[in-house]
Structure formats: C-alpha cells, structure tokens
C-alpha cells in the first residue's frame, strides 16, 4: 500500500492540459452553459489584469499586483459562493472579488491609492484586500463563527498564498475553525513562490493540503488551473460548511506568470522560461478553450463578442476611476471612530484651517 503524503493528497483534476475530461465525477453538471459562464468570467479577469498592468505602466495607477495565470483558481472558487457569503481576499485576488460582485471602479481605485477602493457594494460581504500576510484567515474564521452562532447558512471563504501557511495566523485560524467547527473555507493558491522564495524553502511539507490533517479537517489538493476541479471541489467544501459540517482546506496548484508586483523583477529569482513553458502547457484559459472546442461548445464569434464586452466594461470602469481625482481630505479623519474624538476632530479642524490659508 502506498501511504506517501503525495498519494494521500493527489492533485484532483477534471480537465487535463489538452482539454480532455479525465473523469466523469461531474459529467452531468458540466454543461455548455457552465463552460461559457466560466469562460466569460475568466477572460474578463485576464483582461482586467492586463489592464491593471498597463495602467501602472502608464502611470495612471500606482503599484499593481498581477494575477495572470491564477484565473481558474480565483474564478472557480468565487463562483462556488452565494450572495451573502463572506469573501476575504489578499491583494492578488481582484479576479475573485470582481467575479463575486465587487465594484470594478473601486478595485481600480484601490490601486490608484484611494481608500474608497476598499468599500464593496452594498450587500456584498467582501473584505478589503488583506496586506499583513495570513491575518485575514482569522477574520474569516470569526465571521463564519458569527454566522454559525446566528444559525444561518452563510459561509466565509478566505484566500491566501503558499507563504501565508508559515504564519502563525494560518495555524491559529485553522485551529479555531476546527475547534469551533465553523463554516469556513480556507482557499490556498499555491503559486510556487512567495515573492522570491520558492515553496521548497518555505516548507518541508510535500503539500499544503496535508496541513489540514493537524486540525482534523478535510484537506484537498486541486489543479488550480482547471476551473472545473476548482469549482466543484470548492462547491463541495462550501456545501459541507453550509450544512454545518465545518471547515475545509483547499490547496489550488497554480502559477503567476508575471512579477509579484509591478515593482518586482522575477528574473532575479526564477527562470522565466518556466513561466513561458507553463503558459504553453497549463494555461487555464487555453485549457478551457480546448475543452470547449472538443465538446463543440466553442463559437469564435461568441468568444469575440465576450472579449469585446469585457473590454468595454473595463474601459468604462477605468473612465469612472479616472474621474475621481482626489479623495475628500475629510475621509482621513471622519472614519477613525464612530463618535467624535477630540484629538482627531481638533487635528481635522487645524488641517482644514491650514489648507484654507494656503
């Protein structure tokens, strides 16, 4: 009997790199409609990301964090959620937040240096991007715990990278979630690098999924570039959580083609040849396209229309973003506390007095 860790945590796949369905687990649910929905959301995310990089290059936004290559992991998991569920993104997850209904204008505003970018549309429980690594994992455990206490069926899903699993908050979050059996989904995007540090220097563990064993919760490893595998495995974890069966850990294996951020140069720490090769062999978009072609779901005209529509929506969002020139300075002071607190009020008045004298 093979009891190696890798064999206990095999990488789950539904569609291989060539677009072939490798198992029939969800055959009846994989419809043309679903494939088209995935394609629409993924191509949108990809174009969004390229737009972000270009805007940064043109000086129209600040530092931007690209996610190209991780679309399947982000879209597949985001679409497994329902309205009213909670989403806790990192700063690389605007593919997921836009798919879950965040305002495009606001996502761009975030990268333009506006706090308004943190505010999700009314009714959308999307937390602002978490910057301190892994810290958001505890918040998801907390909101999930609250929903359990309230007796509703909302779930909380939190994103984090491979590097985050070294942080204490990752372990504390999983432990609390396990002890109190809360409806949380811990969604890891293992893209192989934490800025420059490769996974084999981040951990000696063979997988991230195996870390679930320590907390006695389900842990699965999925091909994060296979949107069907991501979607159905996340859906399974979401359903478990909704049914009161507790938290799960999902490790989605993926790859970022580009830099950590637009200020980073990945050629200093990794061979970009590997990125090119991975794009050719494992790209999540190409794979979905191949699958759709093989299934007879592909329609060139439709695809062009989808891309055109995505570009139009992005252009509109950018235009709206660029209309916002500067935040009202009062925003610095007005939301620190929910009540008037004199040092903040006094400093606000002094600030505006100084401005009006200039």
């Amino acid at each position, binding site marked *: 009997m093979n009891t190696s860790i890798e064999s206990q945590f095999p990488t789950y796949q539904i569609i291989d790199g060539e677009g072939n369905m490798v198992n029939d687990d969800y055959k009846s649910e994989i419809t043309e409609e679903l494939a088209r929905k995935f394609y629409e959301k993924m191509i949108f995310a990809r174009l969004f990301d390229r737009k972000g990089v270009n805007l940064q290059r043109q000086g129209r936004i600040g530092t931007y964090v690209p996610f190209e290559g991780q679309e399947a992991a982000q879209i597949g998991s985001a679409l497994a959620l329902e309205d009213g569920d*909670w989403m806790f993104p990192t700063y690389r997850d605007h593919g997921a937040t836009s798919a879950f209904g965040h305002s495009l204008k606001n996502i761009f505003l975030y990268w333009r240096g506006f*706090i*308004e970018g*943190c*505010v*999700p549309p009314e009714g959308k429980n999307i*937390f*602002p991007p978490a*910057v*301190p690594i892994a*810290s958001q*994992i*505890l*918040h*998801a*455990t*907390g*909101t*999930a*715990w*609250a*929903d359990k*206490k*309230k007796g509703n069926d909302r779930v*909380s899903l939190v994103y984090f990278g491979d590097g985050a699993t070294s942080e*204490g*908050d990752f372990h*504390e*979050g999983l*432990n*609390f979630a396990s*002890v109190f059996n809360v409806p949380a989904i811990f969604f890891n995007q293992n893209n192989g690098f934490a800025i420059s540090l490769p996974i084999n220097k981040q951990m000696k563990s063979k997988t991230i999924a195996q870390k679930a064993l320590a907390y006695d919760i389900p842990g699965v490893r999925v091909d994060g570039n296979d949107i069907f595998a991501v979607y159905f495995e996340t859906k399974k974890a979401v359903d478990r959580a909704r049914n009161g069966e507790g938290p799960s850990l999902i490790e989605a294996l993926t790859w970022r083609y580009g830099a950590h951020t637009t200020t980073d140069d990945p050629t200093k720490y990794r061979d970009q040849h590997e990125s090119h090769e991975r794009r050719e062999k494992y790209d999540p978009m190409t794979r979905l396209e191949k699958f759709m072609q093989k299934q007879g779901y592909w329609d060139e005209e439709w695809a062009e229309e989808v891309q055109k529509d995505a570009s139009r929506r992005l252009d509109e969002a950018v235009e709206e973003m660029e209309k916002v020139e500067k935040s009202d300075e009062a*925003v610095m002071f*007005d*939301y*620190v*506390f*929910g*009540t008037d*607190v*004199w*040092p*903040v009020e006094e400093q606000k008045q002094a600030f505006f007095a100084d401005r009006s004298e200039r």
Partner: protein
Amino acid sequence: MTVAINTKKMTLVQAVTDGLRTMLEEDERVLLLGEDVGVNGGVFRATDGLCEAFGEERVIDTPLAESGIVGTSIGLAMNGFIPIVEIQFLGFIYPAFNQIMTHATRIRARTKGRFTVPMVIRAPYGAGVRAPEIHSDSAEALFTHMPGIKVVVPSNPYDAKGLLIASIEDPDPVLFLEPMKIYRAGKGEVPEGKYTVEIGKGNRLKEGEDVSIFAWGAMVKVAMDAAEKMEEKGVSCDVIDLRTLYPLDKDIIAETVQKTGRAVIVHEAPLSGGVGSDIVSLINDTSFLYMRAPIERVAGFDTPMPFFNLEDDYIPDSTRVQKAIEKAVSF
C-alpha cells in the same frame, strides 16, 4: 439608561464581573472570549460564574492563542456580535499586536464605516503582586499611540463597572486595562444594574490649590497617599484620576493646571514615550503661560519591568511622588 438605585459593596474585580454579567443579560450580542474564562472563571476570577449562568456559547474558553482570539473576535464583531476579549495579562497581548494595529483599529476607516469592530479587550496590567516576569507590564502607551482605539483604566470599583459598560457600548475597539494590584485592594459601593461612566472624562479625587497630580490605575492610590502626606506639610494638592488615556480629558487637565500652575504626573510605565509625555504636551498646548514650575514626571524606568524582587524599587511610591511635589512647589 436605567437609573440604578441599590448599591452593593464589592471589589474592583467583582465590579468587572458585575459589569460583564449586566451586559450579558442586557445584550445578547455580547460574548466573552479568552483563555480560561469559562469553566475556570478566569485566572483572576473576573468571569467567575458567568459560563455557568450564560452557557458555553456566550462565555467561551478559547485555544491558547492571543492573535487568534483577537483576530477571530474581529470577524465576530464585523458580523453582528460584541466580543469582550480577555487577554490573561497585558504582557501577553503582544502576539495580538498585529491584529489590533492593522485590523481592529482600521476596519472602520478602511471601509468608510461599512464594517466596524465594536469590541472590548480587557487585560489585567501593572506590577505590585510579585508575579512572574512578563506578567507585570504597563504597556498602555503602545496603544494610546495607535489610531482607532480608546484606552481606559479604572482605579476603583464604581468606575470599573461604569467604564466597562461604556466600553461595551462604544462602537469602536476599547482597550480596558484592569490594575491587578488593586483588584481586591478594598471594596466600594457599586450600583446594581446598568450605568455608565463616560469615556474620556477624568475625575477630581481631591481638591487643592498648589499642585496638580495626575495618575491612573494603581498609581491613583500612591498619588493620593503622597497628596495627603504633603497636605500635612501645608501643600495643597489637586488630584486627578485620568481614567481614560486616549482620548485624554483635555478640559480637566487644563483647568487644574491653570489653577495650580504646577503638575506632577505619576505612571508605572517606562518614562520615555509614556502617556506622561502626552500630558506634558497638552499642558504646553493649553496652559503654557500659567505654569510656575517645570512639570515633574514620576514613572517607571526605561528598562524592562524587573523581576519581582526589585519591583518595589521600580514602581513609583509615595516618597518619590512627595519629592516630586516638593520640587515643583519649591522651584
């Protein structure tokens, strides 16, 4: 607000328990979380009997992880609850520092009020009970410097309950520091039921003309003792218990020093960067021309809190405060 009529004699820690019980009864969103707060009733018995009365769903024994307790409580608070977190000793709060600094205190500001964190972090603090190392820290200034959190310190049973209830009702995070040295130092009259003591307001404990003395927590007793001794020498002291360290009560600070022209500030925490520096600045801003002597600060040293065989040498005592008063009045 219900007007409370009947009172009971209780210690400061009993007043904390009474405040917690009152709010657990009053508001079902209130939860208590912390290490050993449930069945054991807390290492200082501050939550004694509450788990029995309100059940494990509301008085929750958590795993031993301070960042985890605060971080999950942030999620609870954003999603409809009012968590009251107990950090077993203030010196154990450091693992939670990131959660407080980067999240609890910023979520309202980051989301323009869309998400908020109504949460109280309670922690016994200060020295004088011969506790093991790290158990006696006075780290209040780390938090008064932190935008987005209020810092409250009661010095008697009445204020403990009233300030605690005000903290629980506050819409933002409040760090509620409980001076463990005086947890059981004496009993005071505490009204039954719900009442509040306003956050941000100091309290004049003794009326005087020659010098203003500022203190909080366990140092209030030291300041009062020094004031009484100096009174015998003909120096009349105005003693102010600040009660809230952020935001400070600017009005009472200005009013007292404009009357006396002299000030002595007493705190246990290290001198540099201590709250005393903020009080000096406030006096400077509001009352510079009223001052007749340099402001004296009697504080802990810029050293780690010593092991307890030296704690009496570190903690400001009545003699040191009296000397500072003498220096101020004889300038």
